[in-house]
């Protein structure tokens, strides 16, 4: 029953979100990528409803959630524009969208990950230590229980993290009537599945030839499933970051347009609502897209910077700001920030961080796959994939910055967090590698 509820909830969120994505879809976007954008929008509308109900002091219930979301969905359906009809590309007609052997391998890997997740054999410890306990507590309290989060002894549950995932868990439990771990694991499987269809869409839009596309989808799926099984990543919030970065590939690889700006804005907001690392990812996505607009115009149209850049900035940054500002206010006014997390930059840590990172790259559960990150400097050489290479580089530098500043046993920190932080980047780099393998004219 709980599994059906979890699946139904994600489908309903996707349906709700699809009412909001009319202006966020390009004619060349495939059906499944449109569904992923719809899921993002649905999650964000749901998150806003949960936060507003909580702020208004209205306890979460099936009724209050329906009362908040159904009118919003109906209004959006009535007032907002429909998505443009899908334009079939010549490449699609050539059989590029057809199911193939790589898709079969990817499905096999996804099913294996799903079965182990639902059997609770690969539940990530962080699910027990913070995401799950927050979801269960919010379900019990029917709200974001700030009193519980701010207790001094509850610092291990990371009280200052964004709460969207815990809210999704609480709402699944709310509709199912109990907190069932398997149902929560299914939510994680949905993120992975959405990520894989977006990889497929990226390769299709990039015009990768059939063999490359099939091999790449299989390589990405097998890589993440390998790590998911070996490093027990079922239910990890990190899949949301992986998904967000992958979902940013089509708009970052496409020519600049108002629509791709809005897509980046939506993806950034989803990332920011997911996890603290996602807030930083959102900032980098916005920054890079803004740079794509600004850099070619700095000399040719210097007036653009003060005349138009703020409009572009709003399109890109407003959704993420709508997520981040209430979160920052909650952290600030509910006293959730952990003051010992950040300290001064210490170069001398390099002697510890370097060897520890080497061990992380060679960890058994990764099977040497993260060495693909050495491709990133080469990706900078390809003009088309450079924006994504920039995002990946900035995100990696941010993780390094944290290691150089965090007030913690740095070796322990690198060894425990490094493998899953690599997960954020590896699928995007593998996909980009395949895009750079293109030999026919791209669609986008």
């Amino acid at each position, binding site marked *: 029953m709980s599994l059906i509820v979890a699946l139904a909830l994600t489908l309903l969120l996707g349906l709700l979100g699809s009412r909001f994505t009319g202006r966020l879809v390009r004619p060349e976007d495939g059906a499944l990528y449109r569904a992923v954008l719809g899921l993002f929008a649905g999650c964000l509308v749901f998150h806003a409803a949960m936060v507003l109900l909580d702020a208004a002091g209205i306890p979460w219930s099936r009724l209050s959630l329906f009362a908040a979301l159904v009118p919003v969905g109906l209004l959006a359906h009535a007032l907002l524009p429909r998505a443009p009809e899908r334009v079939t590309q010549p490449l699609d007609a050539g059989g590029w969208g057809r199911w193939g052997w790589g898709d079969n*391998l990817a499905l096999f*890997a996804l099913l*294996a990950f799903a079965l*182990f997740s639902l*059997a*609770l*054999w*690969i*539940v990530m*410890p962080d699910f*027990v*230590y913070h995401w*799950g*306990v927050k979801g*269960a*507590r919010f*379900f*019990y309290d029917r709200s974001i229980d700030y009193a*519980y989060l701010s*207790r*001094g*002894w*509850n610092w*291990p*549950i990371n009280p200052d993290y964004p709460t969207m995932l815990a809210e999704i868990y609480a709402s699944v439990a709310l509709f199912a009537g109990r*907190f069932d*771990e398997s149902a929560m694991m299914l939510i994680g499987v949905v993120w992975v599945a959405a990520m894989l269809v977006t990889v497929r869409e990226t390769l299709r839009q990039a015009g990768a030839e059939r*063999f*490359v596309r099939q*091999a*790449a989808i*299989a*390589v990405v799926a*097998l*890589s993440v*499933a*390998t790590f998911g*099984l*070996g490093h*027990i990543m079922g239910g990890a919030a990190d899949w949301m970051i992986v998904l967000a970065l992958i979902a940013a590939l089509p708009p970052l690889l496409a020519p600049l347009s108002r629509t791709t700006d809005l897509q980046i804005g939506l993806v950034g907001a989803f990332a920011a609502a997911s996890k603290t690392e996602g807030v930083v990812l959102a900032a980098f996505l916005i920054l890079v897209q803004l740079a794509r607009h600004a850099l070619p115009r700095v000399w040719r149209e210097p007036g653009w910077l003060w005349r138009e850049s703020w409009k572009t900035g709003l399109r890109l940054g407003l959704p993420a700001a709508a997520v981040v500002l209430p979160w920052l206010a909650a952290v600030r006014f509910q006293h959730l920030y952990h003051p010992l997390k950040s300290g001064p930059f210490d170069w001398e840590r390099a002697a510890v961080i370097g060897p520890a990172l080497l061990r992380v790259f060679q960890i058994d*559960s990764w*099977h*040497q*796959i993260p060495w693909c990150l050495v491709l990133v400097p080469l990706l900078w050489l390809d003009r088309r994939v450079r924006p994504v290479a920039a995002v990946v580089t900035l995100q990696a530098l941010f993780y390094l910055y944290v290691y150089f500043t965090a007030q913690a046993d740095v070796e322990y920190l690198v060894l425990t967090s490094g493998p899953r932080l690599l997960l954020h980047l590896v699928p995007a780099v593998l996909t980009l590698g*395949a895009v750079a*393998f293109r030999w026919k004219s791209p669609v986008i």
Partner: protein
Amino acid sequence: MPRKLILGLALAWCLQAFLSELSLGLGGYDTRREHQMTPAFWRFGTAPVRQLEQCLADVRANVPPGSFVAFTSPSGAGQADFFRLRWVAYRLPEMEVIPLYSPSAAQYAQYLIDYRTGFQHSLLEPMRPVRNCKLYRVRRP
């Protein structure tokens, strides 16, 4: 041809890595009931987790929701007591679970779960026996 070879080799590498993890995962799952791991590596369905869950099921039957419950367990390699506490907090979301070593425990705790340490204190009043642990009510002077 070389690019097909490169992609083919990458695919072969990932496939063998995946099958290797799949095999390890299946092996671990089949023997999960015999697993005796340190708490940092506990997984659902393993023997230590089931033992703790039996204790907590009995605690839930005896302690009202919303209570402040202190928890203590033997320290050990890999911060064993810390990770045991995290599982207890997860399994009792309707209660406020406080580590006994926290300064707040003396101020807030209404109950104490002693998971195999033999902790003694004059303010502790034993409650009815529970499986795999001891449950006390904290008397307030």
